[in-house]
């Protein structure tokens, strides 16, 4: 990977992050008129003196023009200071780092489950194209993409948690038995999407001439699959992998709430309910940053995995 290309990626990511921050900042400013009061009172209905409000207003610079405020926030954010969370009574960045392991472990386990299920299923469906097994797999995945994730989670909770008592109902700490149901819930809907994509990626490669050539040379089907088809089908799948991670980071919020899983999504919803604007801004920008890093990694892996791209880069770069 060329240094210049990498620099370009980073610059682009930086501009986008600033853009996201700006959008988030504008929305929060439009949506909340009396920010200082809200930051102090949160969701509770307590009486606040005007002095207190004035003090917070001055401290946070809320009396200054919008762009000055945004500038301050941005400069601080660049130094890792995302402000103070009134809900958590600690710096925003500390609270985010506290909830990060839960989100990351949940995302990692559901991605693992998804890969474990979807790759074999997708390959099976592709090899049995338009036969009963293919129809069965496609049918199941069709239902999987049509079911609301949060409802599926509740049903799993009801069945395995309440009726059968196999899993705890509230998953406040990270343990294998608490993480399993939320991860499975996320994995089911993602597996359904991904299986279809694996299937079409593999089918696409199976239709290529080189597969026919390999067959004519008497290569075994297994060898064709592992040596020829999968490496080629991998490329488009990696992009989709990156996208799945993105949807995990954001879409997990609803599932996190169903299971009381103390991750960033649940934190974001709590921050909204509490009107803790700084915390919300911090979470959104943080997740956007993670998402962007993942996308950059995906693009980089593309260049590493696809020799054609590598060559092109040498020529142009």
């Amino acid at each position, binding site marked *: 990977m060329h240094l210049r290309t990498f620099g370009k990626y980073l610059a682009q*990511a930086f501009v*986008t992050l600033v*853009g*996201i921050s700006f*959008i*988030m900042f504008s*929305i*929060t400013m*439009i*949506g*909340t008129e009396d920010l200082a009061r809200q930051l102090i009172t949160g969701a509770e209905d307590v009486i606040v003196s005007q002095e207190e409000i004035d003090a917070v207003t001055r401290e946070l610079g809320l009396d200054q023009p919008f762009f000055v405020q945004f500038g301050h926030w941005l400069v601080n954010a660049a130094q890792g200071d995302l402000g103070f969370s009134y809900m958590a009574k600690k710096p925003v960045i500390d609270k985010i780092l506290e909830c990060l392991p839960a989100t990351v472990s949940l995302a990692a386990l559901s991605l693992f489950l998804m890969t474990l299920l979807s790759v074999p299923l997708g390959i099976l469906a592709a090899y049995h194209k338009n036969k009963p097994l293919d129809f069965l797999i496609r049918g199941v995945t*069709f*239902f999987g*993409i*049509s*079911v*609301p*994730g*949060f*409802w599926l989670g*509740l*049903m799993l*909770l*009801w069945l395995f948690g*309440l009726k059968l008592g196999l899993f705890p109902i509230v998953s406040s700490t990270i343990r294998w038995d608490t993480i399993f149901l939320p991860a499975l819930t996320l994995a089911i809907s993602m597996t359904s999407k991904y299986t279809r994509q694996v299937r*079409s990626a593999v*089918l*696409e490669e199976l*239709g290529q001439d080189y597969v026919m050539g390999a067959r004519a040379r008497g290569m075994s089907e297994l060898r064709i699959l592992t040596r020829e088809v999968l490496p080629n089908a991998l490329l488009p799948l990696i992009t989709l992998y990156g996208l799945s991670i*993105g*949807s995990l*980071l*954001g*879409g997990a*919020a*609803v599932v996190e*709430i*169903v299971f009381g899983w103390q991750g960033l*999504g649940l934190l*974001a*919803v709590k921050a*909204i*309910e509490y009107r803790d*604007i700084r915390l*919300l801004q911090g979470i*959104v920008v943080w*997740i*956007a940053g993670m*998402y*962007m890093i993942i*996308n950059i990694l995906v693009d980089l892996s593309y260049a590493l995995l696809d020799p054609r791209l590598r060559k092109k880069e040498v020529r142009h770069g």
Partner: protein
Amino acid sequence: MGELVQGFRTHKNFALFTVLALLLLAAALFAPLLTSYQPTAADMKNAFLPPSAEHLFGTDKLGRDCFARVLYGARNSLASVLLLVALVFTVGTALGIVSGYLGGKTDAVIMRLADIFISFPGVLLAIAIAGIIGGSMVNAIIALTCATWPKYARLSRSLVLKVKQNEYIAAAYVNGGTPFHILRRHILPNILPLLVITAAADIGALMLELAGLSFLGFGVQPPAPEWGAMISEGRQHLQTAPWLMIFPGLAIFISVVIFNLWGDALRDVLDPRDDQE
């Protein structure tokens, strides 16, 4: 339109799913004919009744008939998703067409904006927006429009750029065709089918996202019946009254299945290429 009518005859699937989708809409529209209960009428004496002949889906904590709530809830759920699809389609496509047709600075600005919105988990953005501007059906629709428009903008822009290269566009221009005329007569008819297919295929997914927002409390507000919000209410009584959660969830699931199947069938009608690969 002609294609659709013809598709009704040639594609049995399309006809079937269109009828099913229309039945769904009819059930919502004619809810008062299908149940004698009012969706918001509380009857505390009959709270938490399990499903029976009298209350098909049981009753909730206020003794409201769950079947009536699911039926009337279809109005909110279906109306909001159709509105959302229409809005995303209009906003996204319009921006994309302008971007692709004008090019230059306008294009750069719109696409940069789209990049920003898309480089971001959409659901989270929608949660943040809906949460901050306050929970209501309209706000949930606005929030999801913000999160989804770039997809349509990018798609329509790329389609316009492709169509623009054709010589008949140059011919129309040389013949003195105004930009509006060229867009309306030569570009739109060529790009609309694919965009409509995309929008139709998105109805189901958007319905799930809307339900998710309602579930979080950022959509239709109680006591108005809405499926996502009903699941959220039912969740508190998971142990004692699971029917409160099961039936609205099934309603979402079935509607999404129907719309997804309809979207697939519509693609087969409008886009004769065999994309089943």
